[in-house]
């Protein structure tokens, strides 16, 4: 009999993120599919009662929790100790978590500690022949596999955005408190805080409807034989202001910055999409001045509608990677587009 535990951490305000509800939805679906399985919930955070109450109506038969000031911050040693304690208390055989940066850091270590196995970046959780099975991508989203395991506990991190969120109602949850004995060694690391660009300079917006990708062409010589980097910067930032799109970049453009060249100063490696960058999820994506080669476009796997503007009619986008390719000068198109969006 499988004991399915959903592990989640609270956010800074004590709530559960949407990704936690997505993991709960996936776990509940598995729980329904596997006869005789039971569903449990484990929560970690400074104060977890409000989070537990917010999903009290879910079909979990028991709630476990680790709370206190030591568990407010995202830190490997304390999170690993807390997660391991809850998994042991719940005697979980399947542990489902949202693949947040906090869980991604710690989950494989917890699996190792408890003698289990782990799968991350999971995009599907199903039942096959009475056993759980998962879907995940290999080689940077180039191929998809369906796998199952005999080892338990099996830790599964669900990629945010890959599942619907559960709509469990609120209520009053009874949470069994799990004790965690922290040692001095668990607190050698102090989390100081977060660092982010100023609000108006933050160009990475995971919740945006549109991904706007800038390729190296923006910094290359144009038809007049000159580069127009300041103009490119103005056009791109104006477009972001109008659309609130999330800004991505191909590796080549980011690397130019890394090599000390003064190009598009608002781009960093965090904006990079593809082989050595991120694979974001947005409803739409617009690519400009980018060739659409495979190492970049593997990062577009989860972009539903794709359009591109490129001067090269034979670029990668034309070979089945975009829905529409506009063969045109992106500088000219984007200026006109900004005019329209600004009206």
């Amino acid at each position: 009999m499988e004991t399915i535990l959903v592990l989640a951490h609270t956010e800074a305000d004590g709530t559960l993120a949407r990704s936690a509800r997505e993991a709960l939805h996936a776990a509940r679906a598995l729980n329904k599919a596997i006869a005789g399985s039971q569903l449990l919930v484990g929560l970690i955070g400074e104060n977890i009662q409000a989070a537990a109450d917010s999903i009290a109506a879910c079909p979990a038969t028991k709630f476990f929790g680790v709370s206190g000031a030591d568990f407010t911050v995202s830190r490997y040693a304390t999170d690993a100790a807390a997660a391991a304690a809850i998994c042991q208390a719940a005697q979980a055989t399947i542990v489902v978590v949202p693949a947040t940066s906090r869980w991604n850091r710690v989950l494989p270590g917890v699996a190792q500690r408890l003698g289990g196995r782990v799968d991350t970046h999971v995009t599907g959780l199903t039942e096959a022949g009475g056993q759980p099975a998962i879907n995940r991508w290999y080689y940077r989203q180039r191929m998809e596999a369906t796998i199952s395991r005999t080892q338990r506990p099996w830790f599964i991190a669900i990629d945010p955005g890959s599942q619907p969120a559960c709509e469990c109602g609120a209520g009053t949850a009874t949470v069994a408190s799990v004790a965690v004995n922290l040692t001095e060694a668990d607190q050698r690391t102090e989390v100081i805080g977060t660092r982010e660009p100023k609000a108006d300079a933050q160009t990475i917006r995971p919740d945006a409807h549109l991904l706007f990708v800038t390729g190296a062409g923006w910094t290359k010589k144009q038809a007049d034989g000159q580069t127009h980097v300041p103009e490119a910067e103005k056009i791109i930032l104006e477009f972001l202001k109008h659309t609130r799109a999330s800004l991505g970049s191909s590796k080549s453009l980011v690397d130019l910055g890394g090599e000390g060249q003064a190009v598009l100063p608002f781009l960093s490696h965090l904006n990079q999409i593809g082989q050595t960058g991120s694979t974001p999820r947005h409803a739409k994506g617009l690519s400009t001045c980018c060739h659409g080669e495979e190492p970049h476009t593997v990062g577009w796997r989860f972009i539903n509608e794709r359009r591109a503007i490129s001067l090269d009619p034979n670029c990668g986008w034309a070979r089945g990677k975009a829905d529409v390719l506009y063969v045109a000068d992106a500088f000219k198109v984007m200026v006109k587009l900004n005019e329209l969006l600004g009206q």
Partner: protein
Amino acid sequence: MNTAYQIVVCAGIVPDPLQTLEPVLSPTGPALKNEMMLPAVLDPWAGHALYEAANLAKNAPGSKVWLVSLGPKAKLQQVMMTVAQKVPFELVALDGPASGFTEAAEVAAALTEAIQTIPGLDKSKLLVFGGWESASRGAGATMQMVGERLGIVDQFQGVDQLTVGADGSLEILERIEGGKHQVSKCAGPPALLGWATGNLPEPKNNPQIGMTNMRTVMPALQKAKPTKLAGEGLAFASVTLPKQLRETKVVKDKSPEEIAAEIAEWINK
């Protein structure tokens, strides 16, 4: 405070990202078509970890960098011909599969065993580096398991910056959601860092470094321990390429005004 570090970088090898990859079923499970024929490169994020390690070692006199790598011996040799010219390191090689379909826990066990064989390893000076994910399995799981096996509980993933404080403490920037970094301060080694991109460009080839490295690389390859990864308990029901190939509409004959209007309508839809 001047600390000499022992920096162990775990780095796999992966097919060159420009290659077309196709899965096939082999007697031992899924594999890549013509896998042994595909040109290989050092895993990109692990490469960043190596360059950061070398930079740290350069700025902390007395430090040393080891590169621990698991892969087919012939492939490792091919990759080392390039990598060895970048930064100084001593290779610890394991002769085994570099496939993305191998089990992270088994790879972690093999890497840990190899690390533990490094003579004179001092845990109070030990920093274990690696990529936060690979370009093959892409799980971001192996490093944490290596850390657990070595008893290191100060672990960081998605690291973009490491700064050594005057007191020997380590200030570390890790990537978190929404384009932000979490800032942490660790008292010092031992620690494990899974690197994202970092801040350093790829070093230019330096033949002198290459000559020095190759003196130890070739013997390390010759005595690379054969490593079998059984994939116990793991079953692949299928491995497939994505079926979706878009019917791209190529628009060549419209003015910038017309294209802009079409895109604006699409964005606002």
